């Protein structure tokens, strides 16, 4: 307001206009003013002396100073009022500004401050990992970053930014520059960047680039366990397998925490909720063994390729509790890149697709007949090779070459997989009773496996079944009803476990990092007893004969007692009846016979070729899996080598029993060394 260059012009008139009466009316201010003017005159005299103003040439300057002195010397109430007004005005302005800041702009400013001082700490809370039986990680979460660029807020030229980013992203600067030119903001430069790459990008401290964190489920074993584990989609939702059926066990809630931040950027933990740091280290353990899985997968792939089959599945069940040691389906998919796979592969057809089991069901029919005492184990049946039931022809698969076989024992019926023999066996039973037994073993019901989308098998209704002889006759050799491959394994589990109906499952439970169980699924402690252990053992010995002498020779493992049954069934067509050339081949094996531990099943859909049977397509796969199980579990051979004399110490090894007592030809076992 006051112009410094010409203070006199402004002050002088004020002083001149001031009336004399006013000057005398305020003695205190007058005294003060006199004192001040005295001081000023002294100081100015000093200044003029030092500047040499007393010299004659400086008269003009002296006059100016005199005028200045006189201007300040005289007090002025008006000036005081003005100063007061200026001060008051300034104060009012300050108050107004305060009101503006504290009242009018307060919400905006508060928001701005919050955004600067607080951070949303969103800790990386991963979905729980899934591990296999021996601790191999099958699925684990990891954070990944998406890199966005906003050229509009770049402080450097685009070329510089592109050159800085290029070596880290592994792309050429030119390519990046082209992308940067596409938009002003929100350009997605790269997806799925690792944490280390993200760190390197952040360290560049480039304005206008932005990293967004996401979770990504990683399946390190790729195709290996896809059919068990399943996959999660881009929204972290489990869509298949365990990821879908056990999502409640795998998901952990993600709560973002709002934290204050100090000026230095460090976080202030005063608002952190309890338990924030303590993420539980639980993992979901499966019963699947990835080593068995790998063997099964490679054997299956080989056979599917060799026979040009549509698909195949291998299942291994532990008969102690129904735990699945392996579940492999082919073709499979890589859950890391699920979006590239055919949608059809996401369903696990071992649980979702029905087929007619064919001959693999014959041992169960024999067990039913034995259990109901409809037949005796040593009973002899006449195998005509071809018969008519209700005017429908039924014949053996080898009728054209072998013809009528005549008197045949039950064991031989299984060995030769004789359809006619099986019809004769089941004709010993009342059809109503037979139907009851088919229901009792679980046909028409789901197995209750803990994998999603399982469907129940199909069985004809009681009326149709009991009224027509042909339905019971076809059921005798495993046609006319349908089940899933997993149910086939469950049914053979009844024979293997001494007559118990086990529930197949793949989930062992939630375990902490020390291996202590935290949660385990509730299972039936006492499985339903279907057959007596004697019946089960009798049928097992008949099945062992199938591997020793019959159609299952391909599954023999020297030194070990393997029971098995091949199956080659026609496929039902959509229009009714059976398809001409489409068949399903399968092989089910139980071993070791003396003390069964595993049920191994391989089912191959639509293998091509003249020699495509259960014995040629599926049995070699089962043998490979049995080999793997024996070596992994270090199972000692069942039969001692013929040269080794039974010693008293032999009984100390569990599972070593003299083969002769069971009427089995001893096979020399090279591995059995004394």
């Amino acid at each position: 307001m006051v112009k410094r260059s010409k203070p006199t012009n402004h002050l002088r008139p004020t002083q001149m206009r001031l009336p004399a009466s006013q000057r005398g009316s305020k003695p205190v201010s007058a005294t003060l003013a006199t004192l001040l003017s005295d001081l000023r005159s002294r100081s100015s005299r000093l200044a003029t002396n030092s500047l040499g103003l007393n010299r004659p040439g400086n008269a003009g300057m002296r006059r100016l100073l005199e005028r200045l002195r006189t201007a300040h010397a005289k007090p002025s109430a008006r000036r005081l009022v003005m100063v007061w007004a200026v001060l008051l005005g300034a104060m009012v302005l300050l108050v107004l500004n305060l009101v503006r800041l504290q009242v009018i702009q307060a919400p905006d400013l508060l928001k701005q401050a919050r955004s600067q001082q607080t951070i949303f700490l969103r800790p990386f809370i991963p979905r729980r990992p899934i591990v296999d039986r021996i601790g191999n990680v099958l699925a684990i979460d990891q954070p990944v970053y998406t890199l966005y660029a906003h050229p509009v807020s770049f402080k450097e030229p685009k070329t510089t930014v592109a050159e800085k980013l290029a070596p880290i992203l592994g792309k050429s600067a030119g390519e990046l520059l082209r992308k940067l030119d596409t938009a002003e903001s929100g350009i997605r430069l790269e997806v799925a960047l690792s944490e280390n790459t993200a760190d390197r990008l952040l360290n560049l401290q480039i304005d206008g680039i932005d990293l967004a964190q996401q979770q990504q489920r990683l399946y390190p074993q790729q195709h290996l366990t896809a059919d068990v584990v399943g996959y999660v989609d881009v929204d972290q939702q489990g869509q298949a397998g365990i990821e879908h059926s056990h999502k409640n066990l795998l998901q952990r809630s993600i709560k973002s925490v709002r934290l204050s931040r100090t000026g230095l950027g460090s976080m202030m933990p005063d608002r952190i909720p309890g338990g924030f740091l303590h993420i539980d280290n639980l993992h979901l353990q499966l019963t699947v063994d990835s080593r068995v899985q790998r063997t099964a997968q490679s054997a299956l792939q080989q056979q599917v390729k060799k026979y040009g089959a549509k698909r195949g599945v291998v299942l291994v069940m532990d008969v102690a509790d129904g735990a699945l040691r392996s579940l492999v389906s082919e073709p499979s998919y890589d859950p890391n890149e699920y979006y590239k796979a055919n949608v059809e592969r996401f369903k696990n057809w071992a649980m979702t697709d029905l087929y007619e089991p064919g001959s693999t069901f014959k041992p169960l029919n024999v067990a039913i007949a034995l259990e109901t005492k409809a037949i005796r184990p040593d009973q002899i049946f006449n195998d005509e090779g071809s018969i008519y039931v209700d005017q429908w022809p039924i014949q053996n698969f080898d009728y054209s070459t072998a013809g009528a076989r005549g008197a045949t024992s039950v064991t031989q019926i299984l060995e030769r997989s004789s359809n006619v023999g099986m019809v004769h066996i089941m004709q010993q039973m009342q059809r109503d009773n037979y139907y009851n037994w088919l229901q009792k073993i679980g046909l028409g019901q789901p197995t209750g496996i803990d994998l999603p989308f399982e469907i129940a098998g199909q069985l004809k209704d009681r009326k149709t079944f009991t009224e027509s002889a042909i339905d019971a006759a076809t059921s005798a050799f495993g046609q006319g009803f349908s089940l899933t491959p997993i149910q086939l394994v469950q049914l053979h589990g009844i024979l293997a476990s001494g007559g118990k109906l086990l529930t197949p499952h793949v989930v062992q439970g939630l375990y902490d990092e020390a291996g202590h169980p935290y949660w385990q699924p509730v299972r039936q402690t006492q499985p339903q007893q279907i057959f007596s252990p004697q019946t089960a053992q009798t049928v097992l010995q008949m099945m062992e004969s199938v591997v020793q002498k019959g159609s299952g020779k391909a599954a023999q493992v020297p030194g070990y007692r393997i029971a098995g049954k091949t199956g080659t069934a026609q496929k039902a067509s959509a229009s009714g009846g059976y398809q001409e050339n489409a068949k399903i081949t399968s092989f089910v094996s139980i071993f070791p016979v003396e003390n069964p531990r595993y049920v191994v099943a391989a089912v191959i859909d639509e293998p091509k070729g003249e020699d495509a049977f259960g014995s040629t397509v599926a049995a070699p796969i089962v043998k490979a899996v049995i080999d793997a199980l024996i070596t992994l579990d270090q199972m000692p051979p069942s039969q001692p080598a013929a040269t080794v004399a039974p010693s008293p110490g032999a009984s100390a090894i569990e599972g070593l029993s003299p083969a002769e007592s069971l009427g089995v030809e001893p096979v020399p076992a090279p591995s059995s060394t004394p």
Partner: protein
Amino acid sequence: MLVTLMSVALNPSRRKRPASPRHVSPRSSDPRRVSLFSPDRQVQRLPAQASVPAWVRSLLWVQQASVVATFGLAGSVLAVYGWTVYSQQVWGKEYQQLETLRRHERQLTTNKEMLKDQIAKQGNRPGSTLVPQSPDRLIFLRPAPSRGDAPTPLTPPQASPIAPLGY
């Protein structure tokens, strides 16, 4: 305000003193007495010294105590404030350390599993020197039968009963 009150309380005699000589000695008006310092004059107690009331003293005590308490509290407030700031900084650092460790754990697990998968796949490739285990390569040893009734020595060999004296 408080300061003046205090000074008044500390020196209560200051205002009364000019008046006191008159009251102290009624003989001072006697013209015959010239000297104030006569030998027979009795020493009298000054009244001001005794006149500090108890309530003032208690107030004084309260004041001193509150000064000490104030300094103590101020000190502890500073200490607590400093501690909170420091502990938050420490927390921030430790949290970052925790995150780093978690990340390392994750990366270690992931890399280990991917390596396993890669090795297993290499083993399946033709030309691989890795051989799958098979039952005919297993060797099972029977436990040797017990060696009959060979009598075990009744007196097992014992260490010298004399303990070593030093090492």
